[in-house]
């Protein structure tokens, strides 16, 4: 399964959007946090987990999804949210903790929910799996179209929730796909040190479902493999497990000194940055001209600037609004 030219351009556009988003957040994050770093200060307080480098997974998966399909995301959700079509202004406002944010500042960047596109998050590793299986069950029971994708990191494959959810999805044969973003590091602990098998695709066999590993952080290959799994799920043939090799160009969170990385790893990864790589490929393959790509990049920059402007100019929530919205 190969993406059409339009899909390739859509993927590139959303990778760039996501990267510009992260770059701007990274810059703004340090406002008010220098000279002494204090996580509680500045227009974007709190923990911040950026997705630089992992964009191909989000677009390779979400190119197959419509608004009606369900995604549960992780503590590192921006690229997934952008690729799923979460309202960018409201998302940025949420990251800034503004009254116009997705939850009016109650959630923050690890808890982005946008029911309009069936997007949700959990900041707890592996815990989006159960809700995704349940949403898939809901579609099956209601006879409604739609598949559910749970994004997790490779570290989450060692959570009990992973085993339970994969088994349940397989027993009930629901339209569910688990997509593991293998960025090789669970904060500072390597996959080799934490996981009994080099690749998690083999774990699919434990549940009697297909398992795939996609190498190279390559959006086209991801598109291909995920496409088949989603087609299977849509046809009622049950769940799949897909692990995708990717890498994070940022630290685990903002402020991470990344001393755990072997010397030279980061520089080697920067050489493999998927965005310039895809750019050259689009031109080489004759899918886009330099001008077209410039225009996509410019629009992405403007779109992110607009979202940031919206967030900055939005009002803070009233502090006492913390006491509302506990129940539906």
């Amino acid at each position, binding site marked *: 399964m190969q993406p059409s030219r339009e899909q390739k351009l859509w993927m590139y556009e959303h990778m760039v959007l996501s990267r510009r988003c992260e770059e701007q957040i990274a810059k703004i994050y340090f406002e008010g946090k220098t000279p002494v770093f204090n996580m509680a200060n500045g227009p974007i307080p709190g923990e911040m987990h950026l997705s630089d480098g992992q964009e191909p997974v989000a677009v390779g998966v979400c190119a197959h999804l419509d608004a009606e399909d369900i995604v549960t995301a992780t503590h590192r959700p921006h690229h997934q949210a952008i690729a799923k079509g979460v309202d960018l202004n409201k998302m940025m406002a949420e990251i800034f903790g503004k009254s116009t944010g997705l939850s009016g500042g109650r959630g923050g960047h690890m808890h982005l929910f946008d029911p309009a596109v069936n997007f949700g998050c959990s900041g707890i590793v592996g815990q989006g799996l159960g809700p995704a299986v349940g949403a898939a*069950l809901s579609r099956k029971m209601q006879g409604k179209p739609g598949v559910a994708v749970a994004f997790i990191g490779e570290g989450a494959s060692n959570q009990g929730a992973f085993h339970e959810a994969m088994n349940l999805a397989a*027993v009930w044969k629901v339209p569910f796909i688990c997509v593991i973003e293998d960025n090789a590091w669970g904060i500072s602990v390597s996959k080799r040190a934490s996981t009994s098998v080099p690749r998690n695709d083999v774990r699919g066999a434990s549940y009697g479902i297909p398992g795939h590993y996609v190498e190279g952080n390559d959006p086209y290959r991801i598109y291909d493999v995920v496409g088949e799994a989603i087609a299977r799920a849509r046809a009622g043939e049950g769940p799949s497990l897909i692990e995708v090799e990717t890498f994070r160009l940022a630290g685990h969170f903002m402020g991470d000194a990344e001393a755990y990385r072997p010397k030279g790893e980061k520089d080697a990864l920067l050489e493999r940055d998927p965005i310039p790589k895809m750019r050259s490929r689009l031109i080489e393959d004759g899918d886009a001209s330099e001008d077209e790509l410039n225009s996509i990049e410019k629009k992405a920059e403007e779109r992110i600037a607009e979202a940031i402007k919206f967030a900055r100019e939005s009002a803070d929530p009233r502090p006492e609004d913390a006491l509302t919205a506990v129940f539906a």
Partner: protein
Amino acid sequence: MTESNDRKLTIARAMAESVAQEMRADERVFVMGEDIGALGGVYGNTRGLLEEFGDERIRDTPISETAFIGAAVGAAQDGMRPVVELMFVDFFGVCFDAIYNLMAKNIYFYGGSLKVPMVLMTSTGGGYSDGGQHSQCLYGTFAHLPGMKVVAPSNAYDAKGLMTAAIRDDSPVVFMYHKRLQGMGWLGTEAGATVKTPEESYTVEIGKAAVVREGADVTIVSLGLGVHHALKAAEQLSQEGTDAEVIDLRSLVPLDRETIRKSVAKTGRLIVVDEDYHSYGVSGEVIASVVEHDVSVLKASPARVAYPDVPIPFERGMEQFCLPNVEKILAAYQEMKSA
């Protein structure tokens, strides 16, 4: 006709009847949990449902509480109305993230406009030598954490009405039923829980306590099985000329502080009976509700009859020694009177 109006049900049957009526009325309602299908629930509360609704809507699950309670959250957010069972409340330890980080918080994480209409029903209580991992109440543990409504009925009428209200609620409701009130003979059933229960569908409002016996001398507040201890104690007190008022909380979240305060304002004395652990729990919360509001209404220091802060022992003599009972309530009142 009178036969039907006078019909008595056990809590187990009342719960199953409510679920069945809601399932007939609303296709989105379904049940899942361990042994809730062919077995009809270990405590009888889903009996007959599989036969009527089939295994698509009455779904036995693997022993995977993290996955299926998480799945209930996902299904609820996607428009279904799951009723999910955690067989023993003691098992919350294997799946609490799905309960308090997902079920209880997702509405807040979408600013109040997301619906998570699900019921988590779970059995509580001991007294039958099931040991320290199958006998707890943990009312306070659940009620402490924001984002979940919590109910705990003491009789079949309330059980049916609260279950119907819980299924229709757009927020998650934890429905805690006491094993000894289920009407299962093998658990030493409390007869007072089996009461007249209308066949037609009705709701009992979540968040409203009931004054189940009126009196002027002392207020005894309890929930679940404790209500029956309190009623028996009140009966004995009345023979000695003391007029006890008994409040059945029915809901822990929201807690009906008004009804408690009104009663204690009248009686001036307060005893809380709670089978959950003594410290940091429901009994302390009820007393604080009165004291922080108006301490001057009290004629004596409030008392609590609760489970001591120890794991629940297996051996019969030791367990019975720890549990609340009528004698302990009477002793608490005597001490209060003589103080």
